[in-house]
């Protein structure tokens, strides 16, 4: 091999390595978000409640926001827009799904929590967000969400916002994401 060929080979190896690194960044980003709770990603699986006493010395405001992605004629409402909670105590909040379309649709509510550091401390045992929903035309269902803010929530957090965005589920999405969407279920 001439010196030029050696240099070119090395740069090509670096090039292929960078392509691999770029592809690897996608799953790495997901893992990173799961571990750190950035983007509220940590909130989409059920978790057992942390045991221990209720911290009655402080209140945290939990707000519920719902949004609708495009392509789904649904409405999602939280029956309580915000509640004041003690860390450590379990609470149940009800949400109402309405399909005002003319046919049945499948959809899923994807949660997101801000600030990001709170997402590791918000534990949900029951949530409609763990599974996809199917609503007939005009159907209206009320579904519960049971959660607890763990006691080790940082003192600096006074307000936690839990946002649900409704997305339609199309057939090919359901096929490719089968595992991810229906994992868990009610604990």
């Amino acid at each position, binding site marked *: 091999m001439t010196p030029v060929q050696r240099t070119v080979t090395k740069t090509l190896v670096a090039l292929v390595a*960078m392509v691999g690194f770029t592809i690897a960044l996608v799953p790495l980003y997901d893992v990173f978000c799961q571990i750190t709770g950035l983007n509220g990603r940590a909130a989409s699986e059920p978790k057992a409640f942390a045991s221990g006493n209720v911290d009655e010395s402080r209140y945290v405001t939990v707000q519920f926001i719902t949004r609708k992605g495009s392509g789904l004629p649904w409405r999602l409402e939280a029956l309580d827009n915000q509640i004041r909670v003690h860390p450590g105590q379990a609470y149940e909040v009800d949400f109402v799904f309405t399909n005002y379309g003319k046919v049945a649709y499948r959809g899923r509510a994807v949660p997101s929590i801000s600030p990001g550091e709170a997402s590791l401390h918000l534990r949900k045992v029951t949530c409609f967000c763990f599974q996809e929903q199917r609503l007939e035309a005009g159907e209206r269902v009320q579904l519960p969400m049971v959660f607890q803010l763990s006691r080790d929530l940082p003192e600096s957090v006074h307000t936690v916002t839990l946002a649900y965005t409704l997305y339609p589920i199309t057939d090919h999405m359901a096929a490719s994401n089968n595992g991810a969407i229906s994992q868990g279920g009610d604990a």
Partner: protein
Amino acid sequence: MAPKIPPKARLEHSESVTGGAAVDEHEHHPSGPLRWLLTTNHKEIGTLYLIFSLTMFLIGGVMALVIRVELFQPGLQLVRPEFFNQMTTMHGLIMVFGAVMPGFVGLANWMVPLQIGAPDMALPRLNNFSFWLLPVAFLLLLSTLLMPGGGPNFGWTFYAPLSTTYSPPSTTFFILSLHMAGISSILGAINIIATILNLRAPGMRLMDMTLFVWTWLITAFLLIAVMPVLAGVITMMLMDINFGTSFFNAAGGGDPVLFQHLFWFFGHPEVYIMILPAFGIISIIVPTFARKPLFGYASMVYATASIAILSFLVWAHHMFSVGLPLIAELFFMYTTMLIAVPTGVKVFNWITTLFRGSITFETPMLFSLAFIVLFTIGGFSGLMLAIAPADFQYHDTYFVVAHFHYVLVPGAVFSIMAAVYYWLPKWTGHYPDERIGRWHFWLSVIGVNLLFFPMHFAGLAGMPRRIPDYALQFADFNMASSIGGFLFGFSQLLFVWVVIKCVRGGETAPAKAWDGATDLEWSVPSPAPLHTFETPPDLRRVAG
């Protein structure tokens, strides 16, 4: 130290070689109409790159003038908002990928072999291929403007989901053309690395190379590192659009913020790709016209390398307002500010080189001095933007537009112009017309400041970017900017005139066209013959 011209005996030797019998066996380059299509000569390919870059600069400039004429007054006058969005997007894409990057590659093609004493680039056929990808890529990109739904309209940063879910049907062509431009850059970078690392004249150590060669070597490594990331991002976009994946689609489990992370992981090194070769050019021109060796050669090399390494650790400063955790905001704020240190080293070294120099103000020097002053202004507004809490205010305003135009126009573009004025005698054998050059310089400097300085104020007052209309209180700033824009835009016709005039004739330049020039390229005749350094100059120091 930069290498000195070899002794007189060597100089004559290399001249005699270029006219001698050794050349004849290499005189099989293509002729006739296919000459430019098939050429593998680094000088001809360099010329092609530079002509392509100038053409793209003028096309992108016309788009900028469409933007400025629409923004001359508040309200919608000339173009529809949809078309305005296509203009801002295409202007950015063409200037970044079509004008500035090929401009620097063209200069590298011409000057790197001459400055290291190599007969040609290491991979001449690849060189031809990487150039000819570009006209195809940009014809395809420009043709999207005529397609149903129009061209790309999502900004040159093509954030998802604007560029996926809500993009025009032509986006697939945009992706293909960007892929081709990316492959062209990668192949060019491989070629430059192979040339610099293997074809240096005997005795030329890495630390003997000129700063232009050094900065290009580091830039080429940056290109190898980040162009695959760009290719990956646009491939993911392609799959999201056409194959139902959800990399950037939250409905399918993806994340649009991931797009921004990946894009800026490419994008921030990319902005240094567009400025490091400029640093190299200025580091050659300033010592020539100050008639002093460059102050702090080694520190310049290390500063360039530090900037390149730090560029991988600052990408999220473009994303302060997406909702990063506090620790990340702080990290990216501090690393960004850290870049000011090696950049400051460079600026101070240029100033110290000027100190007590015997300075003359030929056109290349005028552009270089303007570069130092105006690039530093752009650097300072960059530092203001680096402050995360302040950036929440400045984000997506005209302040950002002012900042990056200051570093790219009187920064990168002025350095290319300085380089063209500096090396035109070597390329054509004639000096560029000094009188028209001065007119071009002064009109450009006045135009560029009138164009971009008021944008700082408009941005601080809250004017958002990429919108064809604006509130009344921004009217005066925008009118000044538009007048400056037309002044700057039309004064570039003087540049075209100077170049054409210089190619056709003018005062004859000797081999060493500038009094204070010391680098190797000035040892070959002007104009440089098609083949140079077939016998490499021997720079080995006499032992003992």
